[in-house]
């Protein structure tokens, strides 16, 4: 899993049928100090994360399908947690 910060969201009306009703967040990848590393990722939200929140992102397909359901869901990245704070 990786740490990221919610930077925004994307909307889409034409998509794969399994993506219906799923919230897509644009996430900045961050380092252990909380600074953006420059990379980004788009992930499906499963926890209700909001703008600016630091989140835990699962970037693996089988786990993503377990969380979101659907044996053929074409998703690899899922927001699976919201962090209160980054220790250290």
């Amino acid at each position, binding site marked *: 899993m990786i740490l990221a910060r919610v930077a925004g969201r994307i909307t889409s009306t*034409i998509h794969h049928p399994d993506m219906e009703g799923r919230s897509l967040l644009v996430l900045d990848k961050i380092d252990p100090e909380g600074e953006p590393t420059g990379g980004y990722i*788009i992930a499906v939200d499963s926890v209700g994360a909001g703008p600016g929140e630091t989140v835990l992102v699962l970037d693996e397909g089988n786990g993503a399908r377990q969380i979101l359901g659907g044996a053929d869901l074409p998703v690899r990245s899922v927001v699976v947690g919201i962090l209160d704070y980054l220790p250290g």
Partner: protein
Amino acid sequence: MFLGKVIGRVVPAVICEGLAGVPLLWVQPLDKNSKPDGHPMVCADGTRMAGPDEIIYWEASREAALTLTPSFVPVDHAVVGIVNDIQIDPVEERP
């Protein structure tokens, strides 16, 4: 998943079993500010509706093939959806 822009179509003369009829798109990966980022690549079109100049989001690896039916096909990048809008929160408004 990542953002991309469709910059063309790819028409194969011969393609392996399972991929016949699947649209193939030439896609330029984008960063979150819609600027080109990296080299263009060929994506299968899981929406079957994307076309040139559209902003899309794509998935890589095994999950790309899951956009297609049958899903056991040799595909490693696929368009999952067409983007209507990208909303990036201004940094100063973030908590």
